[in-house]
Protein backbone atom coordinates (compact mmCIF):
# COMPACT_ATOMS: atom_id res chain seq x y z
CA UNK A 1 0.00 0.00 0.00
CA UNK A 2 0.99 3.60 -0.42
CA UNK A 3 -0.54 5.32 2.59
CA UNK A 4 1.63 7.30 4.94
CA UNK A 5 0.97 7.66 8.67
CA UNK A 6 1.97 10.92 10.36
CA UNK A 7 2.28 11.01 14.14
CA UNK A 8 0.77 14.16 15.66
CA UNK A 9 2.56 15.11 18.83
CA UNK A 10 0.20 16.99 21.16
CA UNK A 11 1.01 19.32 24.03
CA UNK A 12 -1.54 21.12 26.21
CA UNK A 13 -4.34 19.80 24.02
CA UNK A 14 -3.02 21.10 20.68
CA UNK A 15 -0.73 19.68 18.01
CA UNK A 16 2.85 20.91 18.46
CA UNK A 17 4.46 22.83 15.55
CA UNK A 18 6.36 19.67 14.56
CA UNK A 19 3.00 17.98 13.88
CA UNK A 20 2.38 20.29 10.91
CA UNK A 21 5.84 19.46 9.59
CA UNK A 22 5.18 15.73 9.95
CA UNK A 23 1.84 15.95 8.13
CA UNK A 24 3.34 18.09 5.36
CA UNK A 25 6.24 15.68 4.88
CA UNK A 26 3.85 12.71 4.91
CA UNK A 27 1.72 14.46 2.30
CA UNK A 28 4.69 14.99 0.00
CA UNK A 29 5.57 11.29 0.30
CA UNK A 30 1.99 10.09 -0.12
CA UNK A 31 1.53 12.19 -3.26
CA UNK A 32 4.59 10.63 -4.85
CA UNK A 33 3.45 7.14 -3.89
CA UNK A 34 -0.20 7.67 -4.81
CA UNK A 35 -1.55 7.09 -1.29
CA UNK A 36 -3.31 9.09 1.38
CA UNK A 37 -2.20 10.59 4.68
CA UNK A 38 -3.42 9.13 7.94
CA UNK A 39 -2.70 11.36 10.94
CA UNK A 40 -2.55 9.69 14.35
CA UNK A 41 -3.09 11.49 17.65
CA UNK A 42 -3.57 10.63 21.31
CA UNK A 43 -4.93 12.83 24.07
CA UNK A 44 -7.78 13.75 26.39
CA UNK A 45 -11.24 15.01 25.51
CA UNK A 46 -11.12 17.57 22.69
CA UNK A 47 -8.08 16.09 20.97
CA UNK A 48 -10.01 15.11 17.83
CA UNK A 49 -11.33 18.65 17.50
CA UNK A 50 -7.83 20.10 17.88
CA UNK A 51 -6.27 17.54 15.55
CA UNK A 52 -8.78 18.31 12.80
CA UNK A 53 -6.77 21.49 12.04
CA UNK A 54 -4.17 19.17 10.48
CA UNK A 55 -6.52 18.54 7.55
CA UNK A 56 -5.32 21.90 6.22
CA UNK A 57 -1.84 20.39 5.73
CA UNK A 58 -2.95 17.29 3.92
CA UNK A 59 -4.39 14.83 6.47
CA UNK A 60 -7.03 12.72 4.73
CA UNK A 61 -7.91 10.60 7.73
CA UNK A 62 -7.44 11.43 11.37
CA UNK A 63 -7.24 8.52 13.78
CA UNK A 64 -7.63 9.93 17.26
CA UNK A 65 -7.60 7.94 20.49
CA UNK A 66 -9.21 10.07 23.18
CA UNK A 67 -9.02 9.13 26.82
CA UNK A 68 -8.31 11.16 29.91
CA UNK A 69 -5.42 8.85 30.70
CA UNK A 70 -3.78 9.94 27.44
CA UNK A 71 -3.20 13.59 28.35
CA UNK A 72 0.33 12.49 29.21
CA UNK A 73 2.34 10.40 26.75
CA UNK A 74 1.63 6.68 26.95
CA UNK A 75 4.25 4.76 24.97
CA UNK A 76 2.52 1.41 25.56
CA UNK A 77 -0.83 2.59 24.20
CA UNK A 78 0.75 4.50 21.29
CA UNK A 79 2.92 1.62 20.13
CA UNK A 80 -0.03 -0.82 20.34
CA UNK A 81 -2.17 1.45 18.15
CA UNK A 82 0.67 1.89 15.65
CA UNK A 83 1.10 -1.87 15.47
CA UNK A 84 -2.62 -2.27 14.83
CA UNK A 85 -2.70 0.45 12.14
CA UNK A 86 0.39 -0.96 10.45
CA UNK A 87 -1.33 -4.36 10.19
CA UNK A 88 -4.56 -2.81 8.91
CA UNK A 89 -3.14 -0.33 6.37
CA UNK A 90 0.23 -1.84 5.42
CA UNK A 91 1.48 1.74 5.10
CA UNK A 92 4.48 2.70 2.99
CA UNK A 93 5.87 4.85 5.78
CA UNK A 94 5.30 6.22 9.26
CA UNK A 95 6.60 9.77 9.82
CA UNK A 96 7.45 10.89 13.37
CA UNK A 97 8.91 14.20 14.49
CA UNK A 98 12.48 13.85 15.77
CA UNK A 99 11.38 15.40 19.07
CA UNK A 100 11.95 13.86 22.50
CA UNK A 101 8.61 12.05 22.32
CA UNK A 102 8.83 11.25 18.62
CA UNK A 103 12.25 9.67 18.98
CA UNK A 104 11.17 7.57 21.93
CA UNK A 105 8.02 6.35 20.18
CA UNK A 106 9.58 5.80 16.74
CA UNK A 107 12.27 3.53 18.20
CA UNK A 108 9.67 1.58 20.17
CA UNK A 109 7.57 1.19 17.03
CA UNK A 110 10.65 -0.04 15.16
CA UNK A 111 11.33 -2.65 17.83
CA UNK A 112 7.70 -3.74 17.91
CA UNK A 113 7.34 -3.98 14.12
CA UNK A 114 10.91 -5.25 13.63
CA UNK A 115 11.46 -2.62 10.97
CA UNK A 116 14.41 -0.27 10.58
CA UNK A 117 14.22 3.38 11.50
CA UNK A 118 16.00 6.42 10.03
CA UNK A 119 16.40 9.13 12.70
CA UNK A 120 16.63 12.89 12.21
CA UNK A 121 15.94 12.76 8.50
CA UNK A 122 16.63 16.04 6.65
CA UNK A 123 15.70 14.99 3.09
CA UNK A 124 13.08 12.62 1.73
CA UNK A 125 12.71 11.24 -1.77
CA UNK A 126 11.05 8.44 -3.70
CA UNK A 127 13.36 6.77 -6.22
CA UNK A 128 12.06 3.88 -8.37
CA UNK A 129 9.18 3.51 -5.95
CA UNK A 130 11.50 3.20 -2.95
CA UNK A 131 11.89 5.67 -0.12
CA UNK A 132 15.34 7.23 0.10
CA UNK A 133 16.33 9.49 2.98
CA UNK A 134 19.29 11.66 3.86
CA UNK A 135 20.28 12.04 7.47
CA UNK A 136 23.24 13.58 9.25
CA UNK A 137 25.58 11.26 11.14
CA UNK A 138 28.65 12.02 13.28
CA UNK A 139 26.82 15.13 14.54
CA UNK A 140 26.45 16.49 11.02
CA UNK A 141 30.09 16.00 10.08
CA UNK A 142 28.79 13.60 7.41
CA UNK A 143 25.50 12.81 5.69
CA UNK A 144 24.22 9.32 4.91
CA UNK A 145 21.87 8.58 2.03
CA UNK A 146 19.87 5.48 2.90
CA UNK A 147 17.30 3.44 0.99
CA UNK A 148 14.52 1.51 2.69
CA UNK A 149 14.36 -2.09 1.50
CA UNK A 150 10.96 -2.87 2.98
CA UNK A 151 7.85 -1.20 4.35
CA UNK A 152 6.76 0.49 6.41
CA UNK A 153 9.72 2.85 6.26
CA UNK A 154 9.97 4.31 9.75
CA UNK A 155 11.51 7.75 9.99
CA UNK A 156 11.75 10.75 12.28
CA UNK A 157 12.15 14.16 10.67
CA UNK A 158 14.39 16.82 12.13
CA UNK A 159 12.31 19.75 13.45
CA UNK A 160 12.46 23.00 11.51
CA UNK A 161 13.76 21.44 8.30
CA UNK A 162 10.69 20.33 6.33
CA UNK A 163 8.41 23.11 5.08
CA UNK A 164 4.84 23.39 6.30
CA UNK A 165 2.63 23.25 3.21
CA UNK A 166 -1.04 24.16 3.19
CA UNK A 167 -2.85 21.49 1.27
CA UNK A 168 -6.44 20.59 2.06
CA UNK A 169 -7.07 16.93 2.93
CA UNK A 170 -10.43 15.27 3.56
CA UNK A 171 -9.91 15.31 7.32
CA UNK A 172 -12.29 12.47 8.16
CA UNK A 173 -12.10 11.73 11.89
CA UNK A 174 -12.15 8.21 13.32
CA UNK A 175 -12.10 7.50 17.03
CA UNK A 176 -11.02 3.95 17.78
CA UNK A 177 -11.56 2.69 21.31
CA UNK A 178 -8.72 2.69 23.79
CA UNK A 179 -6.70 -0.48 23.10
CA UNK A 180 -6.65 -3.04 25.85
CA UNK A 181 -3.01 -2.93 26.92
CA UNK A 182 -1.33 -3.24 30.23
CA UNK A 183 0.78 -0.15 30.77
CA UNK A 184 4.30 -1.17 31.76
CA UNK A 185 5.63 2.37 31.66
CA UNK A 186 3.73 5.24 33.24
CA UNK A 187 4.64 8.76 32.16
CA UNK A 188 3.64 11.77 34.25
CA UNK A 189 2.65 15.24 33.07
CA UNK A 190 5.33 17.52 31.63
CA UNK A 191 6.80 19.95 34.14
CA UNK A 192 7.63 23.04 32.09
CA UNK A 193 10.71 25.10 32.86
CA UNK A 194 10.30 28.43 34.62
CA UNK A 195 10.45 30.50 31.44
CA UNK A 196 8.26 29.55 28.54
CA UNK A 197 10.65 30.14 25.66
CA UNK A 198 10.67 27.98 22.55
CA UNK A 199 12.93 24.98 22.49
CA UNK A 200 16.18 25.70 20.59
CA UNK A 201 15.37 22.97 18.09
CA UNK A 202 12.06 24.47 17.14
CA UNK A 203 12.82 28.17 17.09
CA UNK A 204 13.24 30.08 13.86
CA UNK A 205 15.92 32.33 15.34
CA UNK A 206 18.43 31.24 17.99
CA UNK A 207 20.60 33.68 19.94
CA UNK A 208 23.36 31.69 21.62
CA UNK A 209 25.83 32.98 24.16
CA UNK A 210 29.21 31.62 25.21
CA UNK A 211 31.90 32.20 27.78
CA UNK A 212 32.63 35.55 26.16
CA UNK A 213 29.61 36.92 28.03
CA UNK A 214 31.55 36.60 31.28
CA UNK A 215 28.75 35.61 33.66
CA UNK A 216 25.12 34.48 33.99
CA UNK A 217 23.96 37.95 35.06
CA UNK A 218 25.07 39.30 31.65
CA UNK A 219 22.44 37.24 29.80
CA UNK A 220 20.09 40.18 29.97
CA UNK A 221 21.59 41.64 26.81
CA UNK A 222 20.78 38.44 24.92
CA UNK A 223 17.27 38.26 26.41
CA UNK A 224 16.58 41.77 25.16
CA UNK A 225 17.74 40.80 21.69
CA UNK A 226 15.53 37.68 21.72
CA UNK A 227 12.54 39.74 22.84
CA UNK A 228 13.18 42.28 20.07
CA UNK A 229 13.40 39.50 17.46
CA UNK A 230 9.89 38.35 18.33
CA UNK A 231 8.08 35.16 19.34
CA UNK A 232 9.99 32.91 16.90
CA UNK A 233 13.28 33.58 18.68
CA UNK A 234 14.86 31.81 21.62
CA UNK A 235 18.07 31.52 23.64
CA UNK A 236 20.87 28.96 23.13
CA UNK A 237 24.20 28.35 24.83
CA UNK A 238 27.62 26.77 24.43
CA UNK A 239 28.60 23.83 26.60
CA UNK A 240 31.15 25.93 28.44
CA UNK A 241 28.42 28.11 29.94
CA UNK A 242 26.11 25.16 30.62
CA UNK A 243 28.90 23.31 32.43
CA UNK A 244 29.61 26.47 34.41
CA UNK A 245 25.98 26.44 35.54
CA UNK A 246 25.18 29.79 33.89
CA UNK A 247 22.49 28.32 31.65
CA UNK A 248 20.22 25.24 31.73
CA UNK A 249 21.28 22.12 29.86
CA UNK A 250 18.20 22.28 27.64
CA UNK A 251 19.72 25.32 25.89
CA UNK A 252 23.02 23.66 24.96
CA UNK A 253 23.74 23.59 21.25
CA UNK A 254 26.27 21.13 19.88
CA UNK A 255 27.34 17.54 19.59
CA UNK A 256 26.37 16.71 23.16
CA UNK A 257 23.55 19.22 23.28
CA UNK A 258 20.95 19.87 20.63
CA UNK A 259 21.40 20.12 16.90
CA UNK A 260 19.56 23.13 15.54
CA UNK A 261 18.62 24.28 12.04
CA UNK A 262 17.05 27.73 12.48
CA UNK A 263 16.83 30.25 9.69
CA UNK A 264 19.04 32.61 11.68
CA UNK A 265 21.66 31.73 14.34
CA UNK A 266 23.60 34.26 16.41
CA UNK A 267 26.82 33.06 18.09
CA UNK A 268 27.76 35.68 20.65
CA UNK A 269 31.06 35.26 22.49
CA UNK A 270 31.37 31.66 21.29
CA UNK A 271 34.75 30.52 19.94
CA UNK A 272 33.41 27.88 17.53
CA UNK A 273 34.81 24.58 18.84
CA UNK A 274 34.18 21.61 16.53
CA UNK A 275 31.57 20.20 18.94
CA UNK A 276 29.65 23.48 18.91
CA UNK A 277 29.80 23.77 15.12
CA UNK A 278 28.37 20.25 14.88
CA UNK A 279 25.19 21.57 16.47
CA UNK A 280 24.58 24.66 14.36
CA UNK A 281 26.36 24.49 11.04
CA UNK A 282 23.14 23.62 9.21
CA UNK A 283 21.54 26.93 10.22
CA UNK A 284 20.48 28.87 7.17
CA UNK A 285 22.27 32.09 8.15
CA UNK A 286 24.93 32.35 10.87
CA UNK A 287 26.01 35.62 12.48
CA UNK A 288 29.05 35.70 14.78
CA UNK A 289 30.07 38.40 17.21
CA UNK A 290 33.46 37.83 18.81
CA UNK A 291 36.32 39.96 20.12
CA UNK A 292 38.88 37.71 18.51
CA UNK A 293 39.13 38.07 14.71
CA UNK A 294 40.84 34.65 14.58
CA UNK A 295 38.01 32.76 16.34
CA UNK A 296 37.03 29.67 14.29
CA UNK A 297 33.34 30.61 14.51
CA UNK A 298 34.05 33.19 11.77
CA UNK A 299 34.88 30.35 9.34
CA UNK A 300 31.27 29.15 9.30
CA UNK A 301 29.52 32.50 9.77
CA UNK A 302 27.80 34.19 6.85
CA UNK A 303 28.39 37.53 8.57
CA UNK A 304 30.80 38.43 11.31
CA UNK A 305 31.38 41.43 13.50
CA UNK A 306 34.69 41.62 15.34
CA UNK A 307 33.96 43.37 18.59
CA UNK A 308 32.82 43.42 22.19
CA UNK A 309 29.44 41.76 22.68
CA UNK A 310 28.52 44.37 25.29
CA UNK A 311 28.77 47.11 22.67
CA UNK A 312 27.47 45.25 19.63
CA UNK A 313 24.48 43.41 21.06
CA UNK A 314 22.60 46.39 22.61
CA UNK A 315 23.13 48.34 19.39
CA UNK A 316 21.78 45.40 17.39
CA UNK A 317 18.78 45.09 19.71
CA UNK A 318 17.97 48.77 19.15
CA UNK A 319 18.26 48.42 15.40
CA UNK A 320 16.00 45.34 15.36
CA UNK A 321 13.42 47.10 17.54
CA UNK A 322 13.36 50.10 15.20
CA UNK A 323 12.93 47.84 12.24
CA UNK A 324 10.00 46.06 13.87
CA UNK A 325 8.31 49.33 14.83
CA UNK A 326 8.70 50.79 11.36
CA UNK A 327 7.20 47.59 9.93
CA UNK A 328 4.21 48.23 12.19
Amino acid sequence: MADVIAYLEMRDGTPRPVAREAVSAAKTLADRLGGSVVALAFGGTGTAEAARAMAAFGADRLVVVEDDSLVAYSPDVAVAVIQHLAAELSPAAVVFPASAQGKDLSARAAGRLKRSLASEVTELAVEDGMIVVTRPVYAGKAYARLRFRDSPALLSIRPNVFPVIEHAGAGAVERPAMPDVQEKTRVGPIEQGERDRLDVREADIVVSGGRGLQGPEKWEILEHLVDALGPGATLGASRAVVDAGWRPHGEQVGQTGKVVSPSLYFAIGISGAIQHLAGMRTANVIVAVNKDAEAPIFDVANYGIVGDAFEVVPELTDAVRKLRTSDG
Partner: protein
Amino acid sequence: MNSIVCIKRVPDSETRVRIASDGLAVDRSGVKFDMNEYDKYALEEAIRRKEEAGEGLVTVLTVGGDDARETLRQALAMGADEAVLLRAETGFDGLPVAVALAEEIRDRPFDLLLFGKQAIDDDGMQVPAMVAELLGLPAATVVVSLEIEAGRAVARREVEGGHETVEFDLPGIVAAQKGLNEPRYPSLKGIMAAKKKPLEEKDVTLVEGGLELLELSGPPDRPEPQILGEGAEAVPELVRRLREEVKVL
Protein backbone atom coordinates in the same frame (compact mmCIF):
# COMPACT_ATOMS: atom_id res chain seq x y z
CA MET B 1 21.42 -5.10 42.16
CA ASN B 2 22.53 -6.71 38.91
CA SER B 3 22.96 -4.51 35.88
CA ILE B 4 23.79 -4.98 32.25
CA VAL B 5 25.26 -1.99 30.44
CA CYS B 6 25.47 -1.74 26.65
CA ILE B 7 28.42 0.33 25.55
CA LYS B 8 29.79 1.35 22.18
CA ARG B 9 33.21 2.34 20.93
CA VAL B 10 32.93 5.52 18.88
CA PRO B 11 35.25 8.14 17.35
CA ASP B 12 36.17 10.91 19.79
CA SER B 13 33.98 14.01 19.44
CA GLU B 14 37.01 16.06 18.30
CA THR B 15 37.39 13.85 15.23
CA ARG B 16 37.32 15.47 11.83
CA VAL B 17 35.39 12.97 9.77
CA ARG B 18 36.92 11.88 6.46
CA ILE B 19 34.90 9.76 4.07
CA ALA B 20 36.65 6.67 2.70
CA SER B 21 37.25 6.58 -1.06
CA ASP B 22 34.36 4.16 -1.69
CA GLY B 23 31.95 6.73 -0.24
CA LEU B 24 30.46 4.09 2.05
CA ALA B 25 32.46 4.37 5.24
CA VAL B 26 34.42 6.71 7.41
CA ASP B 27 38.19 6.55 7.11
CA ARG B 28 39.29 5.11 10.46
CA SER B 29 43.00 5.78 10.06
CA GLY B 30 44.39 8.19 12.61
CA VAL B 31 41.02 8.49 14.37
CA LYS B 32 41.00 8.43 18.17
CA PHE B 33 38.29 6.23 19.69
CA ASP B 34 36.66 6.33 23.09
CA MET B 35 33.71 4.88 24.98
CA ASN B 36 30.56 6.73 23.87
CA GLU B 37 30.12 9.61 26.34
CA TYR B 38 26.52 8.73 27.30
CA ASP B 39 27.48 5.11 27.92
CA LYS B 40 29.85 6.35 30.61
CA TYR B 41 26.88 7.80 32.50
CA ALA B 42 25.07 4.48 32.11
CA LEU B 43 28.04 2.51 33.39
CA GLU B 44 28.67 4.88 36.28
CA GLU B 45 25.03 4.48 37.35
CA ALA B 46 25.34 0.69 37.34
CA ILE B 47 28.55 0.73 39.36
CA ARG B 48 27.13 3.16 41.93
CA ARG B 49 23.96 1.09 42.38
CA LYS B 50 26.04 -2.00 42.97
CA GLU B 51 28.29 -0.20 45.43
CA GLU B 52 25.31 1.19 47.33
CA ALA B 53 23.61 -2.20 47.49
CA GLY B 54 26.88 -3.83 48.55
CA GLU B 55 26.28 -6.71 46.18
CA GLY B 56 25.55 -7.48 42.56
CA LEU B 57 27.15 -7.89 39.20
CA VAL B 58 27.78 -5.34 36.45
CA THR B 59 28.05 -6.85 32.98
CA VAL B 60 29.07 -4.78 29.95
CA LEU B 61 28.14 -5.78 26.43
CA THR B 62 29.20 -4.43 23.09
CA VAL B 63 28.65 -5.28 19.45
CA GLY B 64 31.77 -4.30 17.54
CA GLY B 65 35.11 -5.23 16.06
CA ASP B 66 38.25 -6.56 17.74
CA ASP B 67 39.28 -3.07 18.73
CA ALA B 68 36.17 -2.79 20.96
CA ARG B 69 38.04 -5.03 23.40
CA GLU B 70 39.94 -1.95 24.55
CA THR B 71 36.67 -0.17 25.36
CA LEU B 72 35.44 -3.19 27.32
CA ARG B 73 38.71 -3.20 29.30
CA GLN B 74 38.15 0.48 30.03
CA ALA B 75 34.69 -0.42 31.41
CA LEU B 76 36.17 -3.22 33.53
CA ALA B 77 38.77 -0.76 34.82
CA MET B 78 36.00 1.65 35.82
CA GLY B 79 34.41 -1.12 37.88
CA ALA B 80 32.36 -3.49 35.72
CA ASP B 81 32.75 -7.15 36.68
CA GLU B 82 32.56 -8.95 33.36
CA ALA B 83 32.44 -8.11 29.68
CA VAL B 84 31.07 -9.66 26.51
CA LEU B 85 32.17 -8.79 22.99
CA LEU B 86 29.72 -9.74 20.25
CA ARG B 87 31.95 -9.54 17.22
CA ALA B 88 30.25 -7.99 14.18
CA GLU B 89 30.39 -4.95 11.91
CA THR B 90 27.75 -2.32 12.65
CA GLY B 91 26.38 0.41 10.39
CA PHE B 92 23.79 3.19 10.53
CA ASP B 93 20.85 0.87 11.23
CA GLY B 94 20.02 0.33 14.90
CA LEU B 95 17.75 -2.68 14.45
CA PRO B 96 20.35 -5.41 13.72
CA VAL B 97 22.36 -4.26 16.76
CA ALA B 98 19.24 -4.18 18.94
CA VAL B 99 18.31 -7.70 17.84
CA ALA B 100 21.79 -9.04 18.62
CA LEU B 101 21.84 -7.36 22.04
CA ALA B 102 18.33 -8.56 22.88
CA GLU B 103 19.28 -12.15 21.99
CA GLU B 104 22.32 -12.02 24.24
CA ILE B 105 20.44 -10.36 27.11
CA ARG B 106 17.29 -12.52 26.98
CA ASP B 107 18.61 -15.33 29.15
CA ARG B 108 20.64 -13.22 31.55
CA PRO B 109 19.05 -12.23 34.87
CA PHE B 110 19.25 -8.53 35.75
CA ASP B 111 17.41 -5.71 37.51
CA LEU B 112 18.54 -2.80 35.38
CA LEU B 113 19.51 -2.70 31.72
CA LEU B 114 21.35 0.51 30.93
CA PHE B 115 22.24 2.29 27.71
CA GLY B 116 23.51 5.69 26.66
CA LYS B 117 20.77 7.86 25.19
CA GLN B 118 22.57 8.03 21.84
CA ALA B 119 25.71 6.83 20.11
CA ILE B 120 27.63 9.85 18.83
CA ASP B 121 28.59 8.17 15.54
CA ASP B 122 25.24 7.03 14.13
CA ASP B 123 23.29 9.54 16.28
CA GLY B 124 20.44 7.05 16.18
CA MET B 125 18.77 7.25 19.60
CA GLN B 126 17.24 3.95 18.59
CA VAL B 127 18.79 0.93 20.25
CA PRO B 128 17.49 1.28 23.85
CA ALA B 129 13.78 1.57 23.00
CA MET B 130 14.12 -1.11 20.31
CA VAL B 131 15.61 -3.53 22.83
CA ALA B 132 12.81 -2.62 25.25
CA GLU B 133 10.21 -3.72 22.71
CA LEU B 134 12.15 -6.79 21.62
CA LEU B 135 12.34 -7.97 25.23
CA GLY B 136 8.92 -6.67 26.31
CA LEU B 137 10.45 -4.48 29.02
CA PRO B 138 9.51 -1.02 30.29
CA ALA B 139 11.94 1.78 29.45
CA ALA B 140 12.77 5.40 30.11
CA THR B 141 14.96 7.21 27.56
CA VAL B 142 17.01 10.44 27.89
CA VAL B 143 17.14 10.07 31.68
CA VAL B 144 18.74 12.79 33.83
CA SER B 145 17.90 11.34 37.25
CA LEU B 146 16.86 7.97 38.59
CA GLU B 147 15.44 6.77 41.89
CA ILE B 148 14.79 3.15 42.72
CA GLU B 149 12.81 1.98 45.71
CA ALA B 150 11.39 -1.43 46.45
CA GLY B 151 11.77 -2.58 42.87
CA ARG B 152 10.12 0.47 41.34
CA ALA B 153 12.07 2.98 39.25
CA VAL B 154 11.19 6.65 38.92
CA ALA B 155 13.16 8.35 36.16
CA ARG B 156 13.16 11.97 35.05
CA ARG B 157 13.52 12.41 31.34
CA GLU B 158 14.28 15.52 29.34
CA VAL B 159 11.67 16.82 26.89
CA GLU B 160 11.41 20.13 25.01
CA GLY B 161 10.99 22.94 27.53
CA GLY B 162 10.87 20.70 30.61
CA HIS B 163 10.92 17.23 32.11
CA GLU B 164 8.56 14.34 32.64
CA THR B 165 8.72 11.45 35.09
CA VAL B 166 8.60 7.85 33.93
CA GLU B 167 7.74 5.08 36.38
CA PHE B 168 8.05 1.35 35.98
CA ASP B 169 8.75 -1.88 37.85
CA LEU B 170 12.13 -3.59 37.52
CA PRO B 171 13.50 -5.23 35.53
CA GLY B 172 13.55 -2.30 33.16
CA ILE B 173 15.60 -0.14 30.85
CA VAL B 174 17.18 3.26 31.37
CA ALA B 175 18.96 5.26 28.65
CA ALA B 176 21.28 7.81 30.24
CA GLN B 177 21.57 11.49 29.40
CA LYS B 178 24.31 13.81 30.63
CA GLY B 179 23.45 15.02 34.13
CA LEU B 180 22.58 11.57 35.51
CA ASN B 181 25.90 11.45 37.38
CA GLU B 182 29.59 12.31 37.04
CA PRO B 183 31.42 9.28 35.59
CA ARG B 184 34.64 8.24 37.34
CA TYR B 185 37.99 7.76 35.69
CA PRO B 186 39.58 4.33 35.96
CA SER B 187 42.05 4.20 38.86
CA LEU B 188 45.44 2.55 38.53
CA LYS B 189 44.17 -0.22 40.78
CA GLY B 190 41.09 -0.56 38.58
CA ILE B 191 43.25 -0.86 35.47
CA MET B 192 45.34 -3.61 37.08
CA ALA B 193 42.24 -5.45 38.32
CA ALA B 194 40.61 -5.25 34.88
CA LYS B 195 43.30 -7.48 33.41
CA LYS B 196 42.03 -10.41 35.49
CA LYS B 197 38.33 -9.91 34.90
CA PRO B 198 36.49 -12.15 32.43
CA LEU B 199 36.09 -10.92 28.87
CA GLU B 200 34.08 -13.29 26.73
CA GLU B 201 34.16 -13.02 22.94
CA LYS B 202 31.95 -14.55 20.31
CA ASP B 203 31.19 -14.01 16.65
CA VAL B 204 27.61 -13.10 15.85
CA THR B 205 25.83 -12.71 12.53
CA LEU B 206 23.65 -9.64 12.48
CA VAL B 207 20.23 -9.85 10.84
CA GLU B 208 19.97 -7.85 7.64
CA GLY B 209 18.46 -4.47 8.42
CA GLY B 210 15.94 -2.62 6.31
CA LEU B 211 18.27 0.23 5.42
CA GLU B 212 20.81 0.17 2.63
CA LEU B 213 23.57 2.76 2.67
CA LEU B 214 23.80 4.36 -0.76
CA GLU B 215 26.33 7.07 -0.07
CA LEU B 216 28.16 8.93 2.63
CA SER B 217 29.13 12.52 1.93
CA GLY B 218 30.57 15.53 3.68
CA PRO B 219 28.34 18.33 4.97
CA PRO B 220 27.26 20.95 2.44
CA ASP B 221 29.71 23.87 2.14
CA ARG B 222 28.93 27.07 4.00
CA PRO B 223 28.91 30.30 1.98
CA GLU B 224 32.11 32.38 2.00
CA PRO B 225 32.22 34.21 5.37
CA GLN B 226 32.05 38.01 5.30
CA ILE B 227 33.44 40.15 8.10
CA LEU B 228 31.32 43.29 8.11
CA GLY B 229 33.50 45.41 10.35
CA GLU B 230 34.44 46.13 13.92
CA GLY B 231 32.28 46.99 16.91
CA ALA B 232 28.89 48.64 17.06
CA GLU B 233 29.59 50.59 13.87
CA ALA B 234 29.09 47.42 11.83
CA VAL B 235 25.56 46.88 13.14
CA PRO B 236 23.64 48.89 10.49
CA GLU B 237 25.40 46.97 7.72
CA LEU B 238 24.58 43.65 9.44
CA VAL B 239 20.90 44.55 9.77
CA ARG B 240 20.79 45.68 6.14
CA ARG B 241 22.31 42.39 4.94
CA LEU B 242 19.98 40.28 7.10
CA ARG B 243 17.02 42.17 5.74
CA GLU B 244 17.91 42.68 2.10
CA GLU B 245 20.49 40.06 1.17
CA VAL B 246 19.27 36.94 3.01
CA LYS B 247 15.83 38.23 4.02
CA VAL B 248 15.67 36.71 7.47
CA LEU B 249 14.62 39.83 9.36
